[in-house]
């Protein structure tokens, strides 16, 4: 059984927020190529807001903290990524018991991914962040290690490059969307790698 302590949660959120800030320019650059050039700024605004609220959040039990963080993201990120990333954390919080094993986490994660797909009316293969979330889910189900999952997430983000977008702003470009990494996919891979390096350090 795992139990993420309030300190772990703090550390995780802080690390995610600083990774997003450090990568905001790169994410925006990706969005400039096939979107509208705001993805980095959107994500940074959201994670900064969550980090600013950390004292309140960390005082809650983990599921509640995740739900509140997700709601905060919804209320601050805006754009397409706001409802999607927000829904992911809200659902994860809703589905995760306070104490959970790998199977419990995997189940909650799967439900969160399904909620994102439902919110986006989208599925795998459309050049969106789902193209990283689904492979992560499969890797979880396959029993892959935390480090392996992060690697898979990074590869999945790379694998969005040749895809023709049919969802999100990039879909407006038709054929011209081919040859660029999806910014939302890059964000999710980034968050996965942050989470992995945190959890790997755990005893």
């Amino acid at each position: 059984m795992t139990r993420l302590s309030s300190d772990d949660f703090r550390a995780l959120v802080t690390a995610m927020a600083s990774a997003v800030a450090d990568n905001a320019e790169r994410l925006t650059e990706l969005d400039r190529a096939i979107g509208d050039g705001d993805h980095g700024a959107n994500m940074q605004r959201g994670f900064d807001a969550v980090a600013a609220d950390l004292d309140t959040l960390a005082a809650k039990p983990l599921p509640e903290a995740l739900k509140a963080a997700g709601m905060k993201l919804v209320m601050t990120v805006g754009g397409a990524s706001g409802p999607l990333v927000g829904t992911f954390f809200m659902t994860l919080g809703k589905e995760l018991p306070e104490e959970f094993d790998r199977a419990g986490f995997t189940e909650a994660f799967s439900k969160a991914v399904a909620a994102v797909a439902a919110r986006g009316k989208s599925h795998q293969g459309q050049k969106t962040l789902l193209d990283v979330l689904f492979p992560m889910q499969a890797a979880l189900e396959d029993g892959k290690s935390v480090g392996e999952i992060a690697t898979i997430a990074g590869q999945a983000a790379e694998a969005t490059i040749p895809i023709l977008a049919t969802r999100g702003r990039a879909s407006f470009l038709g054929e011209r969307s081919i040859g660029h990494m999806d910014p939302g996919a890059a964000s999710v891979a980034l968050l996965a790698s942050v989470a992995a390096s945190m959890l790997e350090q755990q005893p």
Partner: protein
Amino acid sequence: MKKLMNGADTILSESLAGFTQAHADIVTLDGSGKFVRRRELRPGKVALVSGGGSGHEPLHAGFVGIGMLDAACPGQVFTSPTPDQMVEAAQAVDTGAGVLFIVKNYEGDVMNFDMAAEMMADMTGAQVQQLITNDDIAVEDSLFTTGRRGVAGTLVVEKIVGAAAEQGMDLAGLKALGERVNRACRSFGVALSSCTVPAAGKPTFDIGEGEMEFGVGIHGEPGRRRAPLATADAIAAEMCEGIVKDLGQVAGRNALLFVNGFGGTPLMELYLMHHSARRLFEGHGVQIARSLTGSYVTALDMAGCSITLALLDDDLLALWDAPVRTAALRWGV
């Protein structure tokens, strides 16, 4: 980047403050800056709420007022607003007859308005309906994709639905009317320059001296293709032929011709495009019964324009002509 601003983080709030000061007879800004609302509501009227990313001014706040919108929610530049904005706006302007959200078809806007509608239903049981605009034919339509963007035709939908709301039409009727107007509108855009998002500090796309982006939207996103810059007549021809083809039967129909500037293109060029487009549409037997020319649905400082043709029957023409008193559109009152 050269902009009249104090900083990328305050440009939006300062601009909104100036807008509401300049039009204090028509609108007020909610205390937290989450939405712009009509100063005086009309009890019993269905409330019309729109919104979207900023950078398209005067859309949408410039269309708040008598005969058009009751509230507009401005997001960050080119970023859809968040659900709390729509919820608070809807609560502020709902006088009991229900709320219609008018949403441009971008997944960000659609999802955030969806969440807001769900919250409204959960929290207050208020009647909320959504109307999606998607008039941009530069994007191929399909059930399995995002589909077409909502662009300048949104103004036409907001004007006509706004007039009907003012006349007392109910929520279901307004949604159906809006869908009908949206289906009657087709738009196509071309850009001669990129725009520059304040937070990004540099142009969204690079474009050479002799080039244009054909089939652009209103976010500085690249268009369907890059093409050599052509004459106004050649550009208008390709835009108008696309619109006519997509509309199908147009001969003998009355229409509104709306030439919309993207923010960096002056009126001289827009009227020239009007001249060119009118001749082309008239060649197809369209009767240009109404005209609108100006920068109404913009993309910051982008140079270029869109052409919208809206086929309007007598009922819709009458609603177009009905009095409107907003910051950006005003007649009859």
